């Protein structure tokens, strides 16, 4: 649905996007992560035909963003960062305007607008001027504007900024719902949002792609260590020797015998894959009592920080 091939974009001396390629398939919700100034907005602007890439090409819904820009724009719903709106209109006439520009037939406009008012929770501000709405309501009007023509592809630049917690949850649910049949690309700084809504994640930093994959894939791509906490009743020296002998294990720390004769161990390994299972079997074989076996998962937050703060050479890309 979206195909990005080696696009670059510079503004004067700043390279905003540097040779970025990725793909988004139909029915995917792609999360776009990166620190401030990473190039997320610029990439989205290229995909929505607001900017042209200096080099490289992008296809959206099968159309080239430069050569067939109108066709692309017809099929995309775009929510720009901070949801800019025509301040001098009221909510309904604004949505009417967008509906007309989007080519929705006159007979159908009212139905679509009503639907959007309901979906985006605009009932209480219907006759108000757009300029006098609170930030969260502006964001909702922006979303309504984005969805009104029922687009195949949604490009949302930080869609939940300024919303209250319950609205954030509603909007995330909505995005997930839409994402089932459509294609969504959304940028955000809120990492739990990615975990909650996205089927795939892309991380960019200083204009370059540093990682891409499902949240789980990124977990292993980040390559770091996996940590397993176990609590075992048994001879400490033997336990340590057995655990250390397992494939991939780098270190085993024992915290000394605690309550009920259990000792807590922290096992660090290069590959966490089936280590938990191996430890469980070893416990059975050796007649130890196992009380706790907990795998510490690296959060997306850790991955993000790791990938965006490392020097270029040390980054591990998927």
């Amino acid at each position, binding site marked *: 649905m979206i195909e990005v091939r080696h696009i670059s974009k510079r503004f004067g001396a700043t390279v905003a996007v540097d040779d970025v390629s990725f793909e988004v398939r139909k029915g995917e919700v792609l999360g776009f992560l990166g620190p401030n100034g990473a190039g997320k907005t610029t990439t989205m*602007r290229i995909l*929505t*035909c607001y900017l042209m890439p200096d080099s490289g090409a992008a296809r959206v819904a099968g159309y080239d963003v430069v050569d067939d820009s*109108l066709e692309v*724009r*017809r099929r*995309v719903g775009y929510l720009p960062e901070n949801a800019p709106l*025509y301040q001098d*209109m009221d909510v309904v006439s604004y949505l009417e305007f967008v509906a007309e520009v989007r080519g929705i037939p006159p007979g159908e406009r009212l139905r679509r607008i009503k639907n959007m008012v309901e979906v985006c929770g605009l009932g209480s501000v219907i006759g108000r001027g757009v300029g006098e709405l609170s930030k969260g309501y502006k964001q909702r009007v922006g979303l309504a504007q984005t969805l009104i023509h029922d687009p195949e592809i949604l490009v949302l630049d930080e869609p939940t900024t300024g919303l209250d917690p319950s609205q954030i949850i509603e909007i995330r649910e909505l995005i997930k719902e839409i994402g089932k049949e459509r294609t969504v690309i959304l940028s955000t700084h809120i990492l739990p949002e990615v975990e909650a809504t996205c089927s795939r994640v892309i991380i960019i930093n200083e204009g370059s792609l540093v990682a891409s994959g499902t949240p789980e894939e990124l977990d292993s791509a980040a390559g770091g260590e996996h940590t397993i906490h176990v609590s075992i009743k048994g001879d400490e020296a033997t336990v340590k020797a057995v655990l250390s002998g397992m494939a991939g294990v780098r270190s085993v720390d024992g915290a000394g015998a605690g309550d009920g004769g259990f000792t807590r161990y922290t096992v660090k390994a290069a590959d966490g894959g089936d280590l938990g299972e191996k430890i469980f079997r070893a416990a059975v074989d050796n007649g130890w009592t196992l009380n706790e076996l907990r795998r510490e998962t690296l959060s997306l937050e850790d991955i993000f920080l790791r990938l965006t703060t490392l020097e270029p050479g040390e980054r591990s890309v998927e």
Partner: protein
Amino acid sequence: MMGNTRPIFKRELAGYFNSPIAYIFITVFLGLSSWLFFKGFFVVGEASLRMFFGILPWVFLFFVPAITMRLWAEERKVGTMELLMTFPVTDAEAVLGKYLASLAFLALSLALSLVIPAFVALLGNPDTGQIVGGYLGGLLMGGAFLAIGLFISSLTENQIVAFIISVVVIFGLFILGEDFVLFGLPDRLVPVFSYVGLGGHYDSISRGVIDSRDIIYYLSVIVFFLYLNVKSIEVRK
């Protein structure tokens, strides 16, 4: 109106009336024109619109940039440019929609000023040919001013800057063909300047001499600046 020019036109025209600005503009325009006109009318005591049409370019010099200054500058400032340009609207449709809205607003103001000739007609016997010519010339010249002002509005995000630059540029292009400029020029350049100047063509039309060359001149100026406008929007990409 082609494709998506219509919704843009409608939105912009409604935009004038959504704020008190439109009413202030129209009142100031009508007030100023009538005041300048009647001042001359009662002093000279002549039932002619010659003075009204003589004043019109100078009123337009400030009135037109005030109409156009907001049209693009505001979009840039508020960021709605990004919305507009990612809607399925071509650059030309957007420019044309805005231009036609400003033209409609100007035409409406001009139409309201018909009270002046109506008043003159009550008192005397004004020359109808001159009135028709004056209004046609006014609309064409105003239309050219609008195209220039709209283009300049697309170059900045500051409305006041757009206003000032528009006044300066229109003034510059206007006086090019005026006698006091032509006077100081080498003979070879006189016809060029007097042709390019925005004022001379209006003078002949408003005398009631409707020559297609003058009409073509204004239409070319309009097309030229609308074209520049389309290009200036493309540059952002």
